[in-house]
């Protein structure tokens, strides 16, 4: 780096040296007391922050999906067409044997 640029950077780096402390604004205490008397709103509990709500919903969704995948995987019996017919027939009191004979 050229010496001129280096010198400039060093000047910038030391530009806060000797800076006086900034003073609090006028009537700071008055405004502070007014705020305390008005009741400072309590900070929102962290659990109600949007990011935590979204994260919780995602976790619940994932758990639901895991349960659904688990329950569909554990079903050993496959439902056959015949079983579907029989269950409908039972509901509507239809004689399925007659239907089968007619189809033959």
């Amino acid at each position, binding site marked *: 780096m050229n010496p001129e640029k280096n010198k400039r*950077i060093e000047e*910038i*780096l030391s*530009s*806060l040296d000797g*800076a006086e402390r900034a*003073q*609090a604004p006028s009537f700071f205490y008055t405004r502070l007391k007014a705020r*305390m008397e008005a009741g400072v709103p309590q900070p929102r509990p962290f659990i109600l922050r949007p990011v935590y709500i979204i994260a919780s919903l995602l976790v619940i969704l994932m758990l639901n999906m895991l349960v659904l995948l688990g329950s569909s995987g554990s079903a050993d019996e496959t439902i056959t067409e015949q079983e579907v017919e029989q269950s409908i027939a039972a509901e509507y009191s239809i004689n399925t044997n007659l239907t089968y004979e007619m189809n033959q």
Partner: protein
Amino acid sequence: MNETELIQGLRKGEEPAFRFLVDTYQDLVFNTALGIVQNAEDAEDVAQEVFIQVFRSIDRFKGESKLSTWLYRITTTRSLDVLRSRKSKKRSGLLQRLFGEEGEPLVELPDFQHPGVALEKKENAALLLQAIRKLPENQKVAFTLHKLENLSYEEVSQVMQTSVSAVESLMHRAKQNLRKILEKGVG
């Protein structure tokens, strides 16, 4: 009123003690906050929150460090919270823009002029303060406390609850980073 009497008065909730606390430390708190958040309105907000927190939690102050050390610690923590909140608002503003929602304009803070800097150094100080914004949090805090509050490395280490050598390292890295940032910006 010495520090012991002050703390006793604060614990009893006495207003004169609180008034004395604020009068004694308001500039320390405000200046520290201002150096980190670089905005007078936010700095005043932080300062108010600091004193409210001190008033409410004075019983938790064990007296193992000076009261001023505790105040610095609360101020830097609260100031960093403001910076994080700004960052997250900026991110959600960008998302709103991406999804076509009209939201508030993204806030970019203008160049900050510290009121305590001498006139002939103002321009350089503005450049430095802008560069400080880009530092990691720990380096930002250490550099601000050392430069704007004139705290020694020992005092900074007490505020940051770390070792003096850790502060030396933070300052070294802060200066290196600031040099890199300024090199890009300075013609």
